[in-house]
């Protein structure tokens, strides 16, 4: 099954792509997704993680428009058709 992953703002600056489809298997989590994405776009790790290895709170991750902080955090499980967004810092 496939999920859609979108990259916004400074994350987009690194990936250079706005949206892609990724094949996932049962039990696939956000934490696994981030690992897979960072493997492909190494510069992302510098942005997404603070020195202590925790996620930079100015970078947000949503699943179907809901911030993972209000779901199960990095352990949020993904299913086919889900839309994940990796969101860089923003203001307006």
């Amino acid at each position: 099954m496939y999920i859609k992953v979108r990259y916004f703002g400074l994350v987009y600056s690194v990936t250079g792509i706005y949206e892609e489809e990724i094949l996932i298997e049962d039990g696939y989590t956000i934490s696994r997704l981030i690992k897979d994405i960072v493997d492909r776009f190494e510069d992302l790790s510098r942005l997404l993680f603070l020195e202590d290895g925790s996620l930079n709170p100015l970078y947000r991750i949503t699943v179907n428009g809901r911030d993972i902080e209000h779901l199960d955090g990095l352990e949020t499980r993904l299913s086919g058709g889900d839309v994940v967004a990796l969101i860089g810092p923003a203001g307006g």
Partner: protein
Amino acid sequence: MKFKLLRIDLTRMTSKVDELGDDVIRKYIGGRGLGAYLALKEIPKGADPFGPENKVYILTGPLVGTASVESGRYHVVAKSPLTGILGDANSGGQFGPWLRFAGYDGVVLEGKSEDPVWISITNGEVKFHDAKKMWGKGVIHTEKMIRDEVGIHDESIGSILSVGPAAENLSRIAAVMNDKYRAAGRAGLASVIASKGVKAIWAYGNRKPTEELYDRKGFFDEAKKVIEKIKNHDISKALHQFGTAVLVNIINEHGAFPTRNWQQGTFDKAYEISGEKLADTYLKARKGCWGCVILCSRVSEVEEGPFITPLSEGPEYETIWANGGTTMISELAALVKANYLMNDMGFDTISFGSTVAALMELYERALKGELPEEKAKELIELAGDVNPVFGNPHALIQLIWMAAYRNRIGDYVAEGAMRLAEYFGYPEAAIHVRGMELPAYDPRGINSMALSYATSNRGGCHLRAYAVSFDVLGVPKKFDPLVVDYEKVELVKMQQDYFAFIDSVIVCKFNTFSTGPEDYIGLMKTAMGWEDYSVEELMTTGERIYNVERLFAVREGHGYQDTLPKRLMETPLPDGPAKGKTTKEAIEKYLPEYYRIRGWSDGKPLPETLDKLGLQEFKYILS
């Protein structure tokens, strides 16, 4: 430091200078705060916004034109023709600093001139010039004519504030423009300036505000710390890279991107009009206001095609949304062009796009027979060949000209969404608070914005409290935008008070992502010599200003209307992550708690609140 206030009497063509000392300045600072205080004292109750009794306060603050702490700003305050209450608007660019360099910290326009004039302020000297030839001209041409007359063509020297044809024709949604593309956009204040016969103000001079600082060296040491903090913050870097338009995708993803005139919360073509797309297409450069280290402004150009547009500033997130998302126009080039034309005609781009979206809904309903028959007929006739349907970029562009010169349906668009929708018999199509069109965040999907909008003293506005920062962006910490949480009420109030200080001192609100009230204490002490200045005093000052603004509305008889449009209160969002949500629960639960912590009752400050804030002189308003 004395605040030098230039009062210009347009009826008599005279001017005089008031010097305001600490007794007023320490309580109201400058900018928005000082403007609100003076307006409440000097503009009579029930004044006609276009009458000579209304006054326009164009004010800087003690930090303007000093160090690179995003201090290149000014504030405009007057009774608003759009809302009928106190209106205020803020702008960047160069005008604020140049007004100070020209010799004054603020200007008040009073009375009314028979004939159009432009005013030059040069090293303290005030001159009135005939502006008949400029009347009817766009902002860009007006600036050229003035620079030709003063003989200074280098745009980094001197600065011009002007109004466009929209204001001359008394549109209620006209923006005060400066430096061609910067706008003190909201509340229709440009038309108040035009109603006084003023087309433009030129400011130039050699005064150095930094020489008037109490402790110059100490000030620059403090400024350095603040600048470093701002410069190194991730949000400042993101604003530099993508500008505010980076929010298009983010807010759309959260289902709070008002679409189809607030009938949907997501736009399937959002990416086409996003900051990322802009960066990949029409963006040519990044630019900043005077003394800015963030440089969030876009410089764009459309080189070919039907929407060809010369190199110019913008568009911002709000402009893209109001003219794109809510109208469902997905041609980014058209939005770049519309932004350019709205600036030149002098429109508030938020109110303009929102009014066009309301028109599109009305037109659709007229065609479907959902408006009163006579009104539907009139609307279709007035629209003629414009075809104002959702998604039509040509209608948007055509309407800019038509509204600026009040031609056919444009005559109604120039009045703003509320009056347009009321006239055509379907008030629900106007999404506004107190007559001002709401900006680009649907509070059904970001529930703190429900409270923020409802209690905003100038009407529908995202800049009294930017609750998006904690409901979406996680600054200073993350809250769930769909869950009612009383801690957010305290944060909304805190932002409202803090932002009132920021608009008074004046620095850019984008500083508030990276700095807190504590960062301005050292600057205030060294600038003003207020050795005992504290965070507590700063926040009390903000609270005082917020109450003064509210008192203006109470005095005008608008004190009890903290609510949101029917559509947001009663119609659930049909799509996206906030599907099924309205703002009813948030408003019903948040408001009583908000009034409690504000010391208000039913939207009106209690007498003891005025005592606490040192506002006894305005107690008469409550009786």
